[in-house]
């Protein structure tokens, strides 16, 4: 099979199958738009608001990406601290878990009150807060379960812990790291939208969703959700690309 054709074709086919199934489901059940809009209803909505979609999609996207980058940096740093020190792991893990168990929807108002009017900052902070945890967990696990044989290769040369992290631990856990990144991408997205919906500042796809809601335009609301899914997928493929470049060695033919 042609490999590029395969790579593009399979996900595309899956997506089309899914949309057809959705259309069929709505059609068979005769659901009205306000229960569940069908994909064919969304096309006019996309067309009508195409400029808004592009503008707001971009607004959502850049805040998500910035938040995600912050999450990668802070998550990796935190993961290193916890991976190298059992004490830190034991002390910080429960706090982090507790923090993460708090629904971010309730944190939004607090943040909004702390940094009144700083919409960009607030949105990025929420995207960051919601998405750094999986990254910290995966880095810390990668470090704390690193086989001594691997560690010793560099330790025997007197390498520092940080060097061991960069040369051995990180590359070795890259597959898991990218797995965590895939989860974090979607979480960061949710974070951005949460802020846009709960503490509206009139920008981003979240606000488009809200304005669809005000005018009871259900197809628009569903269209926004689909656009979010689409953006999520775009980000996902960027992560996949990075993974291919940095961790392509890890993929094995399935057994």
């Amino acid at each position: 099979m042609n490999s590029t054709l395969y790579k593009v074709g399979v996900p595309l086919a899956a997506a089309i199958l899914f949309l057809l199934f959705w259309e069929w489901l709505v059609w068979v059940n005769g659901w009205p738009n306000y229960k569940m809009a069908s994909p064919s209803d969304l096309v006019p909505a996309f067309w009508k608001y195409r400029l808004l979609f592009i503008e707001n999609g971009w607004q959502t996207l850049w805040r998500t990406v910035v938040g995600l980058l912050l999450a990668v940096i802070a998550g990796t740093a935190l993961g290193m601290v916890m991976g190298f020190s059992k004490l830190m792991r034991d002390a910080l893990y429960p706090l982090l878990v507790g923090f993460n168990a708090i629904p971010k929807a309730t944190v939004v108002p607090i943040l909004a009150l702390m940094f009144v009017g700083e919409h960009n900052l607030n949105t990025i902070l929420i995207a960051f807060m919601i998405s750094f945890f999986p990254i910290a967990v995966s880095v810390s696990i990668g470090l704390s379960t690193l086989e001594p044989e691997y560690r010793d290769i560099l330790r025997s040369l007197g390498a520092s812990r940080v060097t061991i992290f960069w040369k051995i631990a990180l590359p070795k856990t890259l597959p898991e790291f990218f797995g965590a990144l895939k989860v974090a991408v979607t979480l960061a997205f949710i974070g951005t939208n949460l802020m846009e919906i709960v503490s509206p500042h009139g920008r981003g796809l979240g606000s488009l969703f809200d304005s669809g809601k005000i005018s009871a335009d259900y197809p628009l609301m569903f269209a926004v959700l689909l656009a979010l899914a689409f953006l999520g997928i775009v980000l996902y493929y960027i992560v996949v690309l990075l993974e291919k470049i940095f961790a392509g060695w890890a993929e094995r033919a399935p057994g």
Partner: protein
Amino acid sequence: AETKTPFTLDWKFEGPSAAYFAAADNGHFAAAGLDVEISAGKGSLDAIPKVATGAFPFGFADINSLVKFLDQNPGAPVTAVMMIYDKPPFAVVGRKSLGVETPKDLEGKVLGAPPPDGAWAQFPPFASANDLDVSAITVEPVGFPTREPMLAEGKVAAVTGFSFSSFLNLVRLGVPEDDISTILMADYGLSLYGNAIIVNTEFAEANPDLVKGFLGAVAAGWKDVIADPAAGAAMVAKRNPAADVDLEAWRLKLAIDDNVATDYVMENGMGGIDAERMEAALAQIGETYEFKSAPDASLYFTDAYLPEGNFALK
């Protein structure tokens, strides 16, 4: 046997919900042969589809939202049958100490408004009805959670919001009561109606007597809480464990005075609408909302299930 009829509110269990709890707790629903389970909601656009799909035969929602909903989803089996908030709670809430007492005072000031706010959505017709120079008003988009705190801290001079909610929030934030000026849009040229009881039309056509009984029980419930708001607040507290009874009683009182027991209602009874005002309201909706098809008041409200002369509150 009593017929099971779920009933969805548009919002959480707050003071103004007391009337429905009274209808249940004081046996009005039972007397009409109904076993009503009351659910909280998440905005009118949560309640309307619940009724339209038939999952809930009855609901309580903003009629302006219903107008838009029916325009977007023509033929959806839902309509309003009894007007409750003769005046909608849409308001501009300002502080006298910051120089806001009448609509005109807004010119040259900063107005805080959450973009998806229901009251903010009615600001344009309100502005045009009062000849406001919109370009002279600085509109600051704020989030819901920051709205009242920003007014309390004087970062904005006024905000748009629901009369009773914003007022009480400000009081809670320590703003003196007499410093707060609630400009109810309905008092300044806004013709819109507020929340109404809505029904699933398929259900209503099949069970006209149940609907009539339901509306009668609701009216009785309102009479009960108007007579004794404190008892009403206690019924809310029963369903909302952490509720502050005094606060809810106050909220109920505000809703009754501003929205329910208006002069018109005292005159003409509760539940009905004035056709002319409805036409004006539709025109005002049209100022901010582009109708897909020409609005038709008969689609949105029917008095078919109301008694002659509505429900007298006096």
